[in-house]
């Protein structure tokens, strides 16, 4: 089981062929991460048949490197075009995109990549040291615990408020309603499909996000004329060094993001909720929360640290228990079986070279990865210099490809357009988009977990209070829910003026 095998692992990770495979995987991953809709899971699935001719050690390094690449790459379009390349990059758009519009795209990208790396490194160290121990903690999380985490993510984020509360509520409701369309796995019934085959798949989160954020943002920004803002981005590698000088200031946010990400990631919970939660906390604890949403570097650091920490941590249950912590891990798990390995607790004993080679490659992969993406920061930032009449159709085509690739379904491309118009109208009418997106991503998971819990308790809600872990998390979540109500009251009690609502998170 032991950590003494890490030397063996590094020996494997440093084999020239494996280093080469890592670079190939990372490059592909970055491309796949940039393309919205074509996520890490698709990328890994696509490459899977190609790994048959490789030894399993190299195959897993190729697939995990691709996954790290996708984690890094997801930030690029979020910052440049407000289009999250991956679900966990949605929160990165909140401040990354405003930064790019202010001409600080290079700084935002550097911040995003660096935080990604910090998060990944943190999780990798924890995995190296505590893998088997942590696996047992993951097992403690059944449906009630998973529901309480979803609930906490939601309450922490929604409480950030701002704008018209009624319109926020409508956004949330719409997100939950869209999430409910399709098959209800608890009863096996089709909901709100009205016999239309296309509706059976439901509304995919990523399609909605491409439309609402990406297309919607283009429509909104061209109101002032057919051009893109933010061209004045720094074009050389100096911007990387300059950004690095200010980043240590956010050490608290880094640490918080690491812990949130790792904690959410190593059991089914996921990188996306982690990024939202980290963003929420960064804003809550910040001395100047009003700057969030307007291009604050800390607002990029927080979600990216957590997302990448969670993404790496998602590998832990896969290695130690044979359960996928993320959709991408689920595909890799299939790969393990196809390569003739038996995923699960025995892997550490039976195939120490495989497991420790994989863990060591997490270090090498992420170090190579961050150097690669940082070296390309000027190049990525230069994309904004492409003339408007070329860039616009290019973005639309990429968005269309991404929407299609999610389910190989043409209807999703139409949804993308409709969501684009919806995003434009909602933004103009001050309906916040972020709660809608969060509700859409959490809706399905949360409802399933809630109903599974209720089935387990034969209909009694007390299950969320009587199970210790679920009870604590639920209590914290409830606290955040009532916080917006309590805060002004508390301030008045202390004789301080209440801080007005700040429009932010979208």
């Amino acid at each position: 089981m032991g950590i003494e095998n890490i030397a063996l692992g590094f020996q494997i990770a440093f084999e020239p062929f494996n280093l080469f495979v890592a670079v190939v995987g990372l490059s592909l991953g970055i491309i796949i991460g940039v393309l919205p809709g074509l996520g890490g899971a698709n990328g890994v699935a696509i490459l899977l048949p190609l790994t048959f001719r490789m030894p399993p050690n190299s195959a897993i390094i190729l697939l995990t490197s691709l996954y790290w690449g996708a984690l890094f790459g997801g930030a690029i379009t979020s910052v440049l075009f407000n289009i999250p390349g991956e679900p966990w990059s949605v929160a990165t758009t909140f401040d990354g995109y405003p930064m790019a519009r202010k001409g600080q795209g290079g700084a935002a990208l550097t911040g995003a990549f660096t935080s990604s790396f910090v998060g990944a490194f943190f999780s990798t160290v924890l995995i190296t040291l505590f893998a088997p121990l942590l696996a047992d903690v993951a097992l403690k999380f059944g449906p009630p615990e998973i529901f309480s985490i979803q609930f906490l993510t939601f309450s922490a984020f929604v409480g950030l408020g701002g704008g018209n509360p009624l319109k926020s509520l409508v956004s949330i409701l719409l997100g939950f309603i869209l999430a409910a369309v399709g098959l209800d796995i608890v009863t096996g019934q089709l909901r709100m499909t009205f016999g239309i085959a296309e509706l059976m798949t439901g509304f995919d989160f990523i399609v909605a996000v491409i439309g609402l954020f990406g297309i919607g943002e283009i429509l909104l920004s061209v109101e002032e004329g057919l051009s893109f803002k933010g061209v004045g981005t720094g074009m050389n590698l100096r911007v990387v060094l300059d950004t690095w000088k200010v980043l240590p200031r956010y050490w608290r946010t880094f640490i918080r993001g690491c812990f949130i990400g790792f904690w959410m990631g190593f059991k089914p919970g996921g990188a996306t909720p982690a990024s939202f939660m980290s963003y929420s906390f960064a804003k809550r604890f910040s001395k100047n929360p009003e700057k969030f949403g307007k291009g604050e570097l800390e607002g990029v650091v927080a979600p990216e640290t957590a997302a990448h920490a969670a993404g790496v941590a998602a590998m832990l249950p896969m290695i130690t228990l044979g359960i996928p912590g993320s959709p991408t891990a689920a595909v890799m798990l299939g790969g393990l079986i196809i390569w003739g390995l038996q995923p699960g607790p025995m892997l550490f004993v039976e195939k120490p070279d495989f497991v420790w080679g994989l863990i060591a490659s997490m270090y090498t992969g992420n170090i190579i990865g961050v150097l690669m993406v940082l070296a390309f920061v000027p190049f990525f930032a230069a994309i904004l210099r492409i003339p408007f009449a070329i860039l616009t159709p290019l973005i639309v085509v990429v968005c269309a490809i991404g929407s299609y690739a999610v389910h190989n379904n043409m209807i999703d491309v139409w949804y993308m357009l409709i969501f684009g118009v919806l995003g434009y109208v909602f933004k103009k009418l001050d309906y916040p988009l972020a709660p809608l997106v969060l509700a859409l991503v959490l809706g399905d998971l949360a409802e399933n977990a809630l109903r599974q819990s209720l089935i387990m308790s034969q209909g009694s809600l007390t299950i969320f209070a009587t199970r210790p872990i679920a009870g604590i998390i639920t209590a914290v979540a409830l606290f955040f829910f009532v916080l917006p109500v309590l805060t002004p009251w508390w301030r008045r009690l202390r004789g301080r003026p209440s801080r007005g609502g700040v429009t932010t998170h979208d």
Partner: protein
Amino acid sequence: MRAADLITAAVLMLLAGVVLFDAVRLGIGWGTDGPKSGFFPFWLATIMIATCAVIVLQALRRGSAAPFVTREQLAPVLKVLWPAAGMVAVTQFLGLYVASALYIGFYMRWVGRHSWLAVMALSLSIPLVTFLVFEKWLLVPLPKGPFEAWLGY
């Protein structure tokens, strides 16, 4: 602004009405093993209708009279939206590659007034690269039409 607010709220209420209808079919009660399929949709839709009703009242009482979008703002927005919608429509019939070639070419010429040479070069090379990357390299099938079928795909 007021009119747009009212219309949006009305559309959302209508949508919630449809959801409500289906929720009732699915059963909105609380069974022995927790809520039935329609329970959550029912309450979501009900609260949605109520909230939208309040938004309608708010808008009627103190909605701003400023226009939702001015003519000057709308023109460029439509200049982006219509070609994009056209591209999606053409994709439905001719596949993504042909549609994106036509779309990129048209847009570059119409909005950007780029030279024909640049238009041709980009509108042909971008779909070609896309094709190579997705169909050949990543083995991700994208929508194809009669042209690709003619080429043997």
